[in-house]
């Protein structure tokens, strides 16, 4: 700039020209204007789109989070939770939510809300998607827009009956709520036609009341004569026809279920909210058809002196074998005062007059009069075994002809008292034990000892040197005889040979007379008979077990001791016979006889006095055969004895097996029961808190 001449361009007037403000306005201003208008428009739009604010109160809003939890209607998101807070006094959790404006008008007084969580039950798994996405609130309302509401009370559990679903609600009563749970199926002829809602205790706490929803058109099957019964679990019954196992669907097995049927026609149609009782099982339900379940029962008390274990509430009361009522109450009461006071067990019986054959119009008083009349004529109550295996008892009203006179005590105590008579409780366990004890006490060991002794004696006899040397001596005799026969002197048999032969015959005859062989046979026969007897007794045992009642009588009458004693005796006599000196001496005598004969034959040979060789040979042969027969009987004897021992062993073994079989059967049944209990407990735990499956708590 220093190069510029000082006379350079004159300084310019740099004052900007004043322009009108609109002319000067830059186009760039459009940008913020547009930005502003877009922002404002977006904000307005946002505000406009905001849904209607509703408030739902829950007892427990587990998993519900502001800004995250969606509100869904038929699985379509229609809103979002905006705020979660407590109501005043921390009574409820208030969930503030925005609902789409298009849906809001339909939220009228029939709208229901509940929180959907994962739920694992035997009917399946629901809400599994919420495991990942978090819980959501499901709403349910009908399609009629009524007076819109903005405050609702949420349900803790999913509502089972969706708005608009058609059907009938019935109210079911039961004394035991353990077999009913929300959502359990209601079955009709095995098909699910409805479900139970949440069971509740009745106001006085004595009953459980559960509402059941029966879908249309099945609800038309229900009349006032319909009976509902509990189908949960499985039942095992022992009867004359064997074991019967009755299992329902797995769902009802674990979760419980109710079935109904209308067996007789003529019932009146029902309305919403009709009350029904739940019967224990189908049989009870069907039985109840013939009596009015609401008819009042005649209550009488029975005082038992002995234990009533086995008697339970609901046990049958029979009159001449027919069920007329049930045990309603069991308690202990004190009878008398001061030192004479004693505790009696009181069973209160609920007797249905109609089952006693009284006409429908008769009153309780009439029934009482009838009953006290019967008592005057010898009616007594007693406990009898209802089921041999389970040991359960029933109360039986029986007519005792020679009963001591008694009257019904109508005045003292709460209930009239029926006098009792001796109870007939057959305790199978005890009697079976007694039978086993008796078997145990049988002198089996003595029998065995006797048998062993006998075997020993026989062995001793057989192994006796004399016995063994008898064949040798015989061979020697035959050799000698042969020598004699072929000798030259044989041709000249002396005349007195016949006499010798006769003597020989006499010897042989005396051997025969000694009846050794037949004695043996007889002894063996006796032992064999004893064995057969024992065997027969053993064969009777399965039959005895099958008919336990018969077993008692038969087992008692079996003369086991006598039988075994006689067997022992037999064996002892065999032993005595075999071990007797006579028997032991027998081989010796035989040998001596043979020796004598040999000497005699030698003499004969020497004397050359043989008269009838053929006769002598025949006789000698006969003698030899008799001896051989005697000897050959020995193995048979030992075989029979060993068979006898084996049979005895089998008898004893069969007892052992039988008792183990019983024990094992019992143990198996108990195992099954324990397993069923465990499954049941597990399922209930899961059902009460399905989350536990996921959370592990």
């Amino acid at each position, binding site marked *: 700039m220093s190069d510029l001449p000082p006379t350079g*361009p004159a*300084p310019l007037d740099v004052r900007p020209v004043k322009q009108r403000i609109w002319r*000067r306005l830059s186009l*760039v201003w459009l940008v913020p204007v547009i930005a502003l208008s877009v922002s404002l428009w977006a904000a307005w739009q946002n505000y406009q789109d905001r849904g209607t604010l509703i408030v739902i109160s829950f007892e427990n809003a587990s998993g519900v989070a502001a800004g*995250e939890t969606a509100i869904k209607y038929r699985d379509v998101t229609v809103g979002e939770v905006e705020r979660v807070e407590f109501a005043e006094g921390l009574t409820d959790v208030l969930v503030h939510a925005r609902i789409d404006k298009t849906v809001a008008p339909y939220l009228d007084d029939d709208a229901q809300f509940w929180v959907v969580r994962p739920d694992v039950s035997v009917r399946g798994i629901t809400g599994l998607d919420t495991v990942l996405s978090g819980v959501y609130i499901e709403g349910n309302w009908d399609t009629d827009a009524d007076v819109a509401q903005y405050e609702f009370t949420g349900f803790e559990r999913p509502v089972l009956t969706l708005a608009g679903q058609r059907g009938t609600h019935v109210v079911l009563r039961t004394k035991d709520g353990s077999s009913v749970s929300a959502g359990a199926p209601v079955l009709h002829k095995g098909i699910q036609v409805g479900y139970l809602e949440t069971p509740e205790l009745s106001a006085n706490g004595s009953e459980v009341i559960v509402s059941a929803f029966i879908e249309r058109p099945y609800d038309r099957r229900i009349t006032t004569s319909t009976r509902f019964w509990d189908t949960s679990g499985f039942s095992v019954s022992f009867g004359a026809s064997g074991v019967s196992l009755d299992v329902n669907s797995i769902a009802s097995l674990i979760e419980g279920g109710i079935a109904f049927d209308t067996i007789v026609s003529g019932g009146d149609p029902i309305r919403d909210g009709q009350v029904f009782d739940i019967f224990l099982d189908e049989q009870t339900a069907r039985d109840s058809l013939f009596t009015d379940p609401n008819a009042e029962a005649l209550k009488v008390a029975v005082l038992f002196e002995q234990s009533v274990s086995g008697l339970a509430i609901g046990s049958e009361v029979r009159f001449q074998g027919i069920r007329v009522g049930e045990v309603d109450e069991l308690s202990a009461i004190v009878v008398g005062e001061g030192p004479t006071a004693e505790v009696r067990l009181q069973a209160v019986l609920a007797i249905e007059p109609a089952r006693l054959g009284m006409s429908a119009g008769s009153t309780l008083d009439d029934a009482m009069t009838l009953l006290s009349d019967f008592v005057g004529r010898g009616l007594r109550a007693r406990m009898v075994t209802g089921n041999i295996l389970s040991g359960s008892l029933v109360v039986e009203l029986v007519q005792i002809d020679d009963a001591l006179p008694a009257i019904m005590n109508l005045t003292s105590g709460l209930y009239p008292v029926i006098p009792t008579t001796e109870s007939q409780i057959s305790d199978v366990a005890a009697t079976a034990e007694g039978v086993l004890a008796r078997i145990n006490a049988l002198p089996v060991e003595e029998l065995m000892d006797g048998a062993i002794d006998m075997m020993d004696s026989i062995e001793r006899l057989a192994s006796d040197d004399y016995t063994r040397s008898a064949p040798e001596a015989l061979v020697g005799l035959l050799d000698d005889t042969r020598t004699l026969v072929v000798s030259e002197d044989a041709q000249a048999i002396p005349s007195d040979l016949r006499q010798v032969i006769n003597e020989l015959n006499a010897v042989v005859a005396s051997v025969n007379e000694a009846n050794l062989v037949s004695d043996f046979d007889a002894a063996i026969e006796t032992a064999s008979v004893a064995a057969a007897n024992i065997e027969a007794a053993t064969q009777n045992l399965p039959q005895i077990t099958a008919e336990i009642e018969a077993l008692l009588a038969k087992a008692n009458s079996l003369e086991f001791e006598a039988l075994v004693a006689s067997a022992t005796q037999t064996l002892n006599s065999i032993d005595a016979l075999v071990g007797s000196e006579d028997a032991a001496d027998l081989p010796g005598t035989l040998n001596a006889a043979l020796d004598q004969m040999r000497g005699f034959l030698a003499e004969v040979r020497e004397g050359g006095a043989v008269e009838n060789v053929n006769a002598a040979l025949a006789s000698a042969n006969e003698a030899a055969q008799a001896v051989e027969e005697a000897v050959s009987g020995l193995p048979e004897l030992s075989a029979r004895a060993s068979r006898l021992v084996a049979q005895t062993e089998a008898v004893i073994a069969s007892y052992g097996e039988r008792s183990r079989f019983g024990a094992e059967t019992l143990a198996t049944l108990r195992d099954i029961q324990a397993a069923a209990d465990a499954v049941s407990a597990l399922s209930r735990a899961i059902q009460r808190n399905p989350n536990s499956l996921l959370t592990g708590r």
Partner: protein
Amino acid sequence: MGSSGTVSGLITARQAGLVACQRCGQVHRQDVQICKRCDGPLRSRDAESLQKVWAWLIAGMIAYVPANLYPMLRTSTLVERSESTIIGGVVELIEYGSFGVAFIVFAASVMIPIGKFVAIMYLAISVQRHSESNRHGRHKAYEVVEFIGRWSMIDVFVVAILSALVQLDTIATINPGIAAVSFALSVIFTMLAAQSFDSRLIWDVDRTTA
């Protein structure tokens, strides 16, 4: 330059009746309209500069509002779905204990844009009012605004990169929210505002105050 005393001895090109080309630096006479060298338009002073600055600045500030109200990132994974605004993200990072990252995000997304707004406003106001204080500071502020402007885009780039990388369908997805667009617009607008500022106006103020 420093004190007003030394400045008073100088004259500007405009005072000398000259005008320099903004692009190539060729000096022309005042009355020349088109640069002889580069054919660019010649203007001694941009009369609409301040208007433009204000307009862009206001647009940038308007855009900055939704950028803070709406979510910047929409993160949806298998288990949850979250939307985080800028401030929400910073708070979350602090809760997790990542103070460093939180500071960077806070600086880039909050401090720098707001600082820019303030700096540009200060420049524009001071030029308009012919305020005489701290001329050096004004120059410095202008330079800083020019320099730092581009770094404000770092947030937008992060969002863009994340969105491009994390697209694993149902397992994890990151999508830019409305705030990302607003924020980008806000940054662009403020950069334009800074650009529109004719720095020569500062000299005029210096001159007039001198």
